[in-house]
């Protein structure tokens, strides 16, 4: 699956008519670009483009599509590549792909000595088995 860079999400927001929030006087200055959009049915969308990495993983991109942008990946690429603004039929209800690790489990695995690279692709059941194994060895 093709995943975006921050510049792609910025371009999508511009093509789709999102409004970039300005840093209001007296308010905290953010390191992120915060964008919002009002839909005709009253829904309000929000996204904040992070500068934490220069790319997005597939599971995170799936969640951004479903929860924040409320469009499909094809609609994002049509906007980015061809300048076509998306049509939104309604709220997406399917569960996004990619099995997450609960935060506490990921933190305990790293604390127990598992290299971060070995977290990649680890499902919850396997992660729990690895944690038990690491804790047994201690």
């Amino acid at each position, binding site marked *: 699956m093709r995943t975006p860079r921050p510049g792609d999400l910025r371009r999508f927001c511009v093509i789709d008519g999102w409004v970039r*929030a300005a840093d*209001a006087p007296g*308010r*905290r200055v*953010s*390191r*992120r670009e*915060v964008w*919002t959009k*009002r839909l005709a049915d*009253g*829904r*309000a969308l*929000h996204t*904040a483009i*992070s500068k*934490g*990495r220069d*790319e*997005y*993983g597939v*599971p*995170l991109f799936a*969640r*951004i599509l479903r*929860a*924040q942008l409320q469009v499909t990946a094809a609609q994002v690429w049509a906007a980015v590549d061809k300048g076509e603004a998306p049509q939104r039929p309604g*709220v997406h209800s399917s569960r996004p792909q*990619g099995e*997450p*690790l*609960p*935060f*506490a*489990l*990921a*933190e305990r695995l*790293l*604390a127990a000595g598992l290299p*971060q*690279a070995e*977290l*990649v*692709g*680890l499902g919850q059941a396997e992660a729990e088995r690895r944690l038990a194994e690491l804790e047994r060895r201690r």
Partner: protein
Amino acid sequence: MVRWQMSEARKDFSTLVERASRGEWQLVGRRARAEVVLADAAEIAELLAAAFPFAPEVFAEETGVEIWLPELEVYGQGSTLAEAQDDLVEAALDFVDAWEAELRAAPNQRHKSGHARRVQLADDRAGVAKVLFGATAGSPPR
């Protein structure tokens, strides 16, 4: 329980604050109806924590870590888990600013109220990290 009329409350505000900080809720309103409550912030934070827990989800990638926060629908990224935590704290603060300013009346954002209020009640970035990741969270974000 004492109910204060708006005019009395205005006059005796320091008494209301003192009682509220002792854990006594101070109800204020016009006529017999309570319109606002002055209460101890720590007690409110505790009540909200019990009702609105956070469950961040971690995605480890080849070149970094991403954390999704389903309750506010925001994310953090970084080359390490600690960097992604720091970025998520920033994302939660950004979200709460936008939520307070314009999102909270929208039908698809209203349900985030309890979780957004928890972030608002945190004293500082370290407090937000504690709210999102729990008391055992590793290195506190900058």
